[in-house]
């Protein structure tokens, strides 16, 4: 390598370093793009999927549209939904207490209880897609924290009632 080549290499090398420094210097003067999370929050999470929730009827928002057909339970890949309905009473046992069984049950067109186990859910949306009456949708609360696994088993009927009261 000749001396001139050495100088040329040193020149191009130094130049690229200074160009890089210039770019980072320029970015340093720009406003910050990140936020300090617990003190500030980002505003682009409205479309981010939270766990599924029930959709209320138009005339009574505290009652879900759900017809307890059990299609969502069957569609779910990770078995995280459960719908419970009263089991029809057998003949001769009318006095026995009402037992709850998985939907669909004969004679019940409304769910007794709907649970989603968010710890298992992968937010794929197969349940909402399958629902024949569009009774499931995604909520928009990505900041969900719990200390116990059991807290992720969410009672959707209670949640819908709470939402209707708040509205």
């Amino acid at each position, binding site marked *: 390598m000749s001396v001139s080549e050495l100088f040329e290499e040193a020149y191009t090398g130094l130049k690229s370093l200074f160009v890089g420094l210039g770019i980072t210097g320029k970015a340093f003067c720009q406003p910050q793009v990140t936020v300090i999370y617990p003190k500030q929050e980002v505003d682009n999470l409205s479309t981010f999927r939270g766990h599924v929730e029930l959709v209320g009827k138009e005339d009574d928002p505290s009652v879900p549209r759900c017809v307890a057909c059990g299609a969502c339970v069957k569609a779910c890949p990770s078995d995280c939904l459960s719908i419970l309905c009263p089991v029809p009473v057998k003949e001769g046992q009318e006095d026995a207490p009402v037992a709850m069984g998985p939907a669909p049950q004969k004679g019940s067109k409304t769910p007794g209880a709907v649970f989603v186990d968010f710890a298992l859910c*992968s*937010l794929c*949306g*197969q349940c909402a*897609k399958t629902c024949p009456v569009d009774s499931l949708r995604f909520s928009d609360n990505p900041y969900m924290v719990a200390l116990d696994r059991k807290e992720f088993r969410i009672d959707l009927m209670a949640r819908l009632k709470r939402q209707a009261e708040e509205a």
Partner: protein
Amino acid sequence: MQAFDTAQLPRDPSSVRFEPGPTEDKLILSMGPQHPSTHGVLRILLELDGEYIVRAEPVLGYIHRMHEWMAEQKTYFQFMPNMGRVDYLHAMAWNWAYAGAVERLAGIEVPERGEHIRVAVTELNRISSHLLWWGAYLLDLGAFTPIMYAFDDREILLDILQAVTGSRLTYSYFTFGGVYNDVPEDFAPRCLAFTKHLRSRLPMYRDLVTDNVILRGRCEGIGEMDVDLARRYGATGPVIRGSGAPVDTRRAEPYSVYGKFDFRIPAYSQGDAMARYMVRMDELETSCDIIDQAVSNLPDGPCSAKAPKTLKPPKGEACYAVEGARGKILVHVRSDGGPKPYRVKLRAPGFSNLSVFCELARGTLLADAVSILGSLDLVIPEIDR
């Protein structure tokens, strides 16, 4: 700390082939499974002579999740969310390969609008994958700042994809016959604004990194691979295009509406890490071109065809290949007429690309092996499946 005991080697099944040799300087080094530059849980057994690699052998299986077996246990619809987890960086392409294979099997036609949306989101996802690769590769090489710039741009893109799909990484957006839901009204203008923004950022990327003398020193002439070697190992995607063969599934066997679009397939003939780097940087522009064409005349109509709620494709089998960010993705589905697939075979491009690494790393310095490994753009969960 316990000294390395060569007598223990034969008991380790994956180290059996690395026996103590005649030279004194020989060292067996297990790079990974928890090494920052292996991008996941890849373990590479290296036989070193001083600082030179005599032999390299990847050991897989640390993140094997039995996706193919899971496919046999679930219905066609239920397997869809798995596709977002095979290659989490280019989930859309895997979505597409599986949806395409099942559509071909069941004879479902996708409406024009659905195809355009599919192209747009897949290319957006490709950009996000390449941007992340760019940042992570430079992180491997010791440059910390570029990943910040890459993530800055990637955030804008993820916001667009989040508005469409509801998630930011593991998308499960495709359905048989189209896409899960229609795009919001501002999708096209946001995409166009993003491609414009990215094009304005690319010269900055070039000045900051591509022209940098340190990067060139770490990439040029490192891991040279001729096109024969790439072909022999079945390497696809940017890896083979970096060796001079402009092989691209989007052009070679145009699926969906790719035949209608006008785009360039970048290829570099040097075959080194720099060539593979340049291919990916050029592909950012290619993807921008495709997105512009796909969203600027988004056809009206339904975004999805009506697919039966319980899908039972007729007996038979179908293949569907798409071009992922890492190469050719192929899904082979076989049906026995029931509600669940009889067998699903996933062809991951990363597996073939990783196989070339043994040849490329032989005789190089250990530090260069990190550069080679990064230039192959491996996603280990995809390779292990």
